[in-house]
């Protein structure tokens, strides 16, 4: 699914205050894995996530997503790939404030060229799956944090991506809703077989995943299998 070889990324390359963020990352993720990347802030975990999500580029090395080499892609091609292969869940939800829940969920399909009726019906289906059927016509600011994140999950799911990348998905939520969100993600991973990659600094989140990668100063410090994942908050 994901194959990363000796990946390097430096911010402000060539300038005196150049920042070498990722220093030769090697990493493999198989389809259907449920893993987390941990690390202190500044360890490069968010940058790695952005590179994996084709939201950011890298300098040297190789990154192959689902058999496609992601390197020097045009904006258009990158957008296409993001649309079909990757779903995102963000700490700050990143819902479009003037669109209601259903429209937010349907948006990826709009860029995929799915007709309105069909994508709205599909969006309703996903919202109902996540228990938000009654909130379909609510705007984001009429929803609670947990509800917003569930809308974001539905939005990430709707284009049936091969991988969902979550950047601190519980960062803005209390423990009860955090637990709820992680349970949903685990559920999606099991039922739909979608690879889940969560970037977090919360140990409780990492404990719930099958595999934990620790990043430190732009390098992988450890890559451990978690034989006994538990969801406890």
């Amino acid at each position, binding site marked *: 699914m994901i194959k990363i070889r000796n990946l390097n990324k430096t911010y402000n390359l060539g300038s005196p205050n150049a920042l070498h963020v990722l220093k030769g990352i090697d990493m493999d993720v198989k389809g259907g894995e449920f893993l987390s990347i941990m690390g202190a802030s500044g360890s490069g975990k968010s940058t790695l996530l*952005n590179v994996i999500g084709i939201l950011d580029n890298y300098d040297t090395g190789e990154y192959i997503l689902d058999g496609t080499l992601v390197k020097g892609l045009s904006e*258009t091609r990158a*957008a*296409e790939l993001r649309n079909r292969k990757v779903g995102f869940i963000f700490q700050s939800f*990143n819902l479009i404030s003037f669109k209601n829940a259903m429209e937010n969920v349907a948006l990826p399909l709009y860029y995929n060229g799915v007709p309105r009726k069909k994508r709205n019906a599909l969006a309703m289906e996903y919202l109902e799956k996540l228990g938000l059927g009654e909130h379909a016509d609510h705007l984001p600011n009429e929803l609670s944090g947990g509800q917003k994140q569930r809308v974001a999950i539905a939005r990430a799911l709707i284009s049936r991506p091969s991988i969902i990348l979550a950047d601190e998905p519980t960062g803005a939520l209390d423990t009860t809703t955090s637990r709820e969100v992680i349970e949903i993600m685990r559920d999606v991973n099991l039922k739909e077989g979608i690879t889940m990659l969560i970037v977090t600094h919360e140990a409780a989140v990492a404990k719930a995943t099958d595999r934990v990668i620790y990043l430190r100063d732009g390098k992988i410090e450890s890559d451990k299998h978690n034989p006994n994942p538990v969801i406890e908050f």
Partner: protein
Amino acid sequence: MFDLLGEIIATMRKNKLRTFLTGFAVAWGIFMLIVLLGAGNGLQNGVQSNMTGLATNYENLWPGWTSMPYKGLRADRRIRFDERTVEFVRRSFPEIEYLTGILFHTTQSVSYGEEYGTWRVLGASAEATHIHNMIIRKGRFINEIDDLHKRKVIFIPRLVEEILFKNGEESLGKYVLVDGIAFQVIGTYDWVDGSTDTSIFTPLSTSTMLYDRGRGINRIDFTVKGMASIEEADDFDLRLRQAMGAYLGFDPTDTSAMYIWNNAKNSLQIQNVFRFINIFLWVIGFASLMAGIVGVANIMLVTVKERTREIGIRKALGATPWSIIKSVIIEAVFITTVAGYIGIMLGVGLMELVNKAIGSGAGEGGITAFKDPTVGLGIVFSALAVLVICGVVAGLIPSLRATKIRPIEAMRAD
């Protein structure tokens, strides 16, 4: 395509203030342009329509009093025109087209049967019909034979006919008493410019015989061929003064001895004034258009922050740069076109209203300062095109920048 429009309309609807302000700036710019240029055109049309009563190359002379001694003659002499003066003017200036002497007489009464009134009688010769722009409604104007035989005939305005001849009674051939002398009606007329002037025309020879009290002919009216510039008009007037001064005995520089009204020069001057007014209005109109453009640009730039975030999210969800640029362009075109159209409708509506109000107020009056305040469609639509293009550019620049920013950075912008 429908999907794209739906998405854009939804975006606009959810950003009402932005949409409204952008649209308002455009509508206001177009509205002001139309009102200003319309007002300019209205003023010009109004003034020009007031001048249609006379040929544009019309000129006239009337005698005054000398204010300077001339060749041993003292100052303060009355200058007098007579039939020979009229012939002298015609002989001396081959560029004169049509010419007539005019003699005024204010009547005591003009009556027919029980009906009567008091009007001015103008003695004029046959050529006056080419100098004064009137529409002959019935019969004919004075001709050479009338003049030669000093016939007692009158050519009356329709307003006078309506007063004297009640219940649609035929006026042609009837005898009307002018200060007790019977005159036969030979025709009726209206002024081209709708003036309510009620001059009754009679042959100059008849009028001289009956009404000249030793002061001679009051005025000489004529048209001149080929006065295309103010310089040519000035040159003609100078030669006229010199010839008349030598003939009647006054200093050519003595402007009070003889007065000249040069309509050609006058209308050329008015044209110059209007050229200036039009340039001025264009400058103001352009400035208000610029204000509209700045308004549009400003609003587009102010909203770039929230837009940046939105564009970041859309990009993360798989929007291609082109799809974002496309939607921004169509949004800008849509808003500016619709708003521009509204501005055009309001501007044209206001001008129509003004036209109607003034038209009904001055319908009978003849003199209007304002008429047909319209603007060419070409001008309006090119102004709209300028605004649409500026709206697109103003929307596009920040959006292009936003599409270049990596989505993560764009989304962090809060």
